[in-house]
């Protein structure tokens, strides 16, 4: 997926990512760990094309990012589900509307939306919260709304950037459970975290990034800070 990708911000002399190469198989569950500032977020921003790599090649699901035209970026983003650390929910819309929004963008009929959204809210255990506003929800619930929004379009890849970062342990586990469930349904999951306990318990492939380089890449690994 990634081949010798380097990202340099501005005129900074040290790259945020230095020749990162990473191959992820479909349906894999990969955890990316690393200190703050190691380059995890940069890596994810490259994948969603929020940032552009300085050099190297990124190919996801057959899409070569170098050949991707600006007007096709929305199409790329529709294929990737993203869960942000700060949720990025639309504050003036209800839970239902937030999830439905992802479907409205792709032009789904309101009939189909009414049919699909409750199913997904069910998956993330948010049944009954459809008409709540984001500010009325707990952090864990908001994060699950964000996940519901990310998976409602059934993306092949789900990128979760520290989804547990703002959550207490109980809610964090709720979120992780949902991610595992989605992975079982056949979605590739890319999770970044620095929560040691989660990494150790999940027993999945762990990629460690340090100072913009891949320090280790082990299957079923545990992780120590």
């Amino acid at each position, binding site marked *: 997926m990634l081949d010798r990708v380097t990202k340099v911000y501005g005129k900074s002399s040290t790259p945020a990512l230095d020749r990162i190469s990473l191959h992820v198989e479909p349906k894999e569950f990969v955890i990316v760990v690393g200190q703050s500032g190691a380059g995890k977020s940069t890596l994810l921003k490259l994948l969603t094309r929020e940032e552009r790599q300085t050099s190297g090649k990124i190919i996801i699901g057959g899409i070569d990012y170098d050949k991707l035209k600006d007007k096709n970026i929305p199409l790329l983003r529709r294929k990737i589900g993203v869960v942000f650390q700060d949720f990025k929910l*639309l504050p003036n819309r209800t839970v239902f509307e937030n999830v439905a929004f992802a479907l409205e963008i792709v032009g789904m009929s309101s009939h189909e939306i009414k049919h699909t959204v409750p199913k997904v809210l069910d998956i993330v255990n948010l049944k009954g919260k459809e008409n709540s506003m984001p500010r009325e929800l707990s952090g864990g619930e908001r994060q699950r709304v964000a996940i519901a929004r990310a998976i409602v379009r059934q993306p092949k890849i789900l990128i979760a950037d520290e989804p547990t970062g703002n959550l207490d342990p109980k809610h964090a586990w709720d979120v992780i459970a949902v991610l595992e469930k989605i992975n079982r349904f056949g979605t590739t999951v890319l999770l970044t975290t620095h929560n040691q306990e989660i990494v150790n318990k999940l027993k999945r492939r762990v990629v460690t990034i340090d100072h913009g380089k891949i320090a280790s890449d082990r299957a079923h690994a545990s992780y120590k800070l």
Partner: protein
Amino acid sequence: MAIAAMAVMVVTLTIILLSLVVNTTLSGTIKQITDKIDVSVYLKDSVTVKQRQEFTQRLEALPNVSSTRYLSKEEALEAYRQENVNNPELLKAINQTDNPLPATIRVKPKDLNKVQDIQQFLNQTDNKELQSEEPSYSGDRKEAIDKISHAANVLQRVGIAGIALFAIISVLIIFNTIQMAIFNRRDEISIMRLLGANTWYIRGPFVVESIIYGIVSGLISVLLIKSLFIASSGTLEASSLGLLDISYAQHYFNDHFWILLLAQVGIGVVIGAGSSIVATRRYLKFKTPKK
């Protein structure tokens, strides 16, 4: 956002409409004055019909002559009487003698600034022989004609420049207002962007909103001017302020009401759509590769 942007747009469109009406009124008034101005060529009583016709033909062949009108001695007298209806002294003087007025050709020039070529033509010796006295543009009257046409030109130019200036300033202000509104919603825009929304999916509502403000502002501005006229006709009763003939302005406004309304709404739509498209552009841009 709604109130601020619309207030600015209403003020702008009202000013544009007002300057348009004022400008048309001014040039209309000036046109009325200059239309009455012509060059009167006075013919000797001895000129034959054939001579006159031939002379008229040559006169009409001049590039700057728009039309000519022949007044026989009797018609000239009649016209003189009408012009001086309120001056019985003068009428009496005319009535007491037999008709002293010469037959007259009234020449309407196309361009008041170029009366010289008509003058030149009339001064040629064989033409001069036909005339009983100097044509009437000469002296003070010529100067007056010159001044009025010059003033007309200047006013028109000032009017156009004024409208353009107001339009530019208001576009900048409206652009700024809309940009502020969009700035307040930039997080929402960036979230939509990250979820893969199309440019026009995000931009559409902003543009539609701004267009609606444009339409409403256009309507309000026309109604404002309309009520201004209604109010002024009550108090000023078709009076005029110098060259600004209010009844003329009112007529112009009422005659062109629907066109003006359409134009105002149109301008509002263009300003609203244009500034919202430009204002959203920077928040919708993708990161471009660094070379």
